[in-house]
């Protein structure tokens, strides 16, 4: 498979309702920013979640390490962007 077929990874942040921060909900692949927003709308707001979406190319996110002294992070330094925040666990999921 050629690389041109593989769309880059985007991280998606959704504002669930007014008054809340955008929170990270996951990632998806898209060829461009516009497509990332469209896909995010379809994938992460199928059930009316969210009033605002941010889509950010994963490679553009800078993230801190848990422990800067540690040389063993080096192999994953190119993955620093992965999933930097939690998203809220909904109240109506029982027993979590």
């Amino acid at each position, binding site marked *: 498979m050629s690389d*041109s*077929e593989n769309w880059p990874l985007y991280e998606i942040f959704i504002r669930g309702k007014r008054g809340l921060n955008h929170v990270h909900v*996951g990632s998806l692949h898209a060829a461009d920013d516009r497509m990332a927003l469209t896909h995010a709308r379809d*994938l992460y707001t199928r059930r009316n979640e969210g009033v605002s979406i941010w889509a950010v190319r994963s490679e553009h996110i800078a993230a801190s390490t848990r422990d800067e002294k540690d*040389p063993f992070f080096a192999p*994953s330094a190119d993955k*620093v962007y992965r999933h930097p925040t939690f998203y809220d666990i909904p109240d109506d*999921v029982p027993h979590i």
Partner: protein
Amino acid sequence: MTEAAGSGAEQDLESQFEATIGRDQRIEPRDWMPEGYRRTLIRQVAQHAHSEIIGMQPEGEWITRAPSLRRKAILLAKVQDEAGHGLYLYSAAETLGADRADLTERLIEGRQKYSSIFNYPTLSFADVGVIGWFVDGAAICNQVPLCRSSYGPYARAMVRICKEESFHQRQGYELLMTMMRGTDEQREMVQDAVDRWWWPSLMMFGPPDGDSPNSAQSMAWKIKRHSNDELRQRFVDMTVPQAARLGVTLPDPELRWNEERGHHDFGTPDWSELKAVISGDGPCNTERVARRRAAHEEGAWVRAAASAHAAKQAARAREEAVA
């Protein structure tokens, strides 16, 4: 760095990792983790993602033929959810350094597995209901504990998936209740579907504990929270009263309540069948993978065109900036 210093640092990290698991806290993508933990998770999450995507096919075949518009909408929404769930899970796998394109290749080349249940055919519309009841029910049984899995992105994906899947199971059971109130022919369709899907559903929990070599480590790492046999027992105990309420017979002559154990006794699934289906000899293995491969290959020109357009747009933007 000397070898001794290296292994000392690694031991520190490993004990930090073990301590995090011991405190029932989540491991997050940036944390150090043993290679085995990462590998096991990638395999499990990828198989789970593949199962969602391949699992669209058996029911998807009935969307265009659903016998009422309400059922059509529900089924389309459900199968769409499965695509979404596959995407949530691929997203979780990618936090471990896996690449979705690579995982897709592994799936369509038969190098990575998916749940054996999706290699059985759907022969009537009652199968849509029974899949919702049994297969999604079994999936929920498996997945609810995974909401507490030690790996954060996987656990969070499971929370979202479980929340959405309660609809899947309910729509199936409700379809069956409606059909059982219908004609004799419909009741026969339901019983026939129950007969065909019961044993494959029990096999969804995997081989018996004594024959499941990776389980102990996965449980120690809290990737899995319950053994295959525990979950299977729970599924049986939960399903028996539902079958009675529905008015269908589960096709197991050994099925009976055991007062002493406080659980139902039940017969032994045909494990040789499970092995055969997993190793590629199920009724639909070939067509399921072929369909996925065809969609992927026939879509290549679309994905390439979108990438080409994005590259051209970026180049145009650069030119404009220079000019």
